């Protein structure tokens, strides 16, 4: 099955000459959750805006469901729902009216039963007759999501969905994303929060300065670039790593109160057993041992630094 979103050699140059996207290629598979990570100004929002029709690509082609987003915009856009980063809502409008408006705008006939279930899913049903201005920030963000879901999109773009929302709403949002995935909706979300990508994404794309640095399966990425560290706290401080332990390439930290051993999780032998034996042989006493898996955050920082270097 061809990818549901295909971005081919897309470049976007703004009037001032700023190149927001450089020769970008991206394929998004049906039903997956893709997280786009990148620092501010990396081009995440530009990429989404260009796919959704808010800005035209300077060159290159974008297809959604096989339909070109420029020449066949009607068919392409019917499939797409967009939740923008900014809370763009008419303050004096009522929740139900604005959601109904969105559904009509996307060419769908009125279906209040469906809208009811969307609003209930987002805990907005009680607020359906409230004015937007009366809602809290988190509630407004839910209204934006309800608007995007009102026309039953097959591909949903969430631009920084959890920026500035509380922990509870973030968890709700993740649960919603999970439900949508079960319905077969493809989800692309941009985020600064690596924790978020780690929690819900299938694949992770890293974008910086208008270029996609990589797009990879989250688990593969963590396995490939992820390192594990073992921190060994000693009963007595050491002034230097004993020569007998040289082959483990240990790092001495906290003024010799602890040693850190890095190892590859995919290696057949991690070397932990022999290290512990050799530590004992060197006469070092162990107070505590901790292991830590490097997170997407470490990987992300490494990638962006490498790209900037």
């Amino acid at each position: 099955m061809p990818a549901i979103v295909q971005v081919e050699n897309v470049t976007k140059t703004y009037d001032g000459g700023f190149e927001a996207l450089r020769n970008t290629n991206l394929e998004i598979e049906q039903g997956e959750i893709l997280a786009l990570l990148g620092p501010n100004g990396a081009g995440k929002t530009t990429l989404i805006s260009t796919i959704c029709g808010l800005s035209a690509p300077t060159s290159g082609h974008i297809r959604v469901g096989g339909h070109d987003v420029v020449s066949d915009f009607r068919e392409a856009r019917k499939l797409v729902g967009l939740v923008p980063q900014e809370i763009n809502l008419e303050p004096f409008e009522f929740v139900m009216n604005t959601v109904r408006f969105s559904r009509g705008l996307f060419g769908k006939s009125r279906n209040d039963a469906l809208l009811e279930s969307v609003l209930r899913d987002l805990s907005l049903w009680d607020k359906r007759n409230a004015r937007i201005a009366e809602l809290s920030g988190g509630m407004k963000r839910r209204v934006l999501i309800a608007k995007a879901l009102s026309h039953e999109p097959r591909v949903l773009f969430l631009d920084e969905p959890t920026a500035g929302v509380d922990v509870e709403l973030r968890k709700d949002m993740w649960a919603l994303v999970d439900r949508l995935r079960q319905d077969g909706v493809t989800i692309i979300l941009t985020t600064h929060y690596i924790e978020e990508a780690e929690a819900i994404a299938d694949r992770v794309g890293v974008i910086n300065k208008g270029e996609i640095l990589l797009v990879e399966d989250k688990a593969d990425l963590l396995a490939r670039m992820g390192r594990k560290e073992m921190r060994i706290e000693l009963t007595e401080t050491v002034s230097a790593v004993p020569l007998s332990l040289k082959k483990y390439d240990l790092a001495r930290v906290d003024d010799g109160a602890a040693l850190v051993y890095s190892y590859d999780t995919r290696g057949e032998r991690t070397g932990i057993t022999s290290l512990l034996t050799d530590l004992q042989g060197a006469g070092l006493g162990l107070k505590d041992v901790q292991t830590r898996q490097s997170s997407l955050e470490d990987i992300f920082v490494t990638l962006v630094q490498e790209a900037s270097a």
Partner: protein
Amino acid sequence: MNWNGIRAIYRFEMARFFRSIIQSIVSPVLSTSLYFVVFGAAIGSRIDSVEGVSYGAFIVPGLIMLSVLTQSLQNASFGIYFPKFIGTIYEILSAPISSLEIVIGYVGAAASKAMIIGSIILTTSFFFVDISIQHPFWMLAFLSLTCVSFSLLGFIIGIWARSFEQLNLVPLLVVTPLVFLGGSFYSITMLPPIWQSISLFNPVLYLVSGFRWSFFGTSDVPVVASLIAITGFTTLCLFIVWWIFRTGYRLKA
């Protein structure tokens, strides 16, 4: 055609109008009544008649035009400027709806509102003066063409404007003088010859003249000229709107 989309925009815009129904209706009725009192009763009592029509009745078509022009411009320019201002335009730009359909929705709603207000003023005027409409079909034709063309102009202004100040600038500095100098409250035959000639360059004159002809059968300029003027103006506005969407002028990054 995305009919559901057009309907959604039209309904949404009309709902805004009906939410402020008191303001929407009371204000034109009040201002019209004031015009009748001041121009019709007070000043009009010193003027016998203009081209065989009592002065109070003579100003009715001009009064309707004045309100209809202003309302069309205001409603249409605000209707499209507001989503731009608060950012909700993103949704319209990302929807499977063509520029023509967007224009039909917004301009249709603005023109409808202006039509409703025009009808209210006409009804109000029946309470103050005796008027009969000689050519009802042409009266409706002129009224609706004016509503549509000036709503189109309003739409263009709404897209062009970058601030509320700019939004009010054109109606205030251009349209109001044109309406007042376009023979709304007088016949240009009452002017010195030089001003008569200058008035012929005022597009609003053709609207008011044609509209007044549909009431009383007398006009400042030939009815055909009025028809050509209004049709030409509508076409020009349509062309500009087409160009705006083709180039994405002030709409897309």
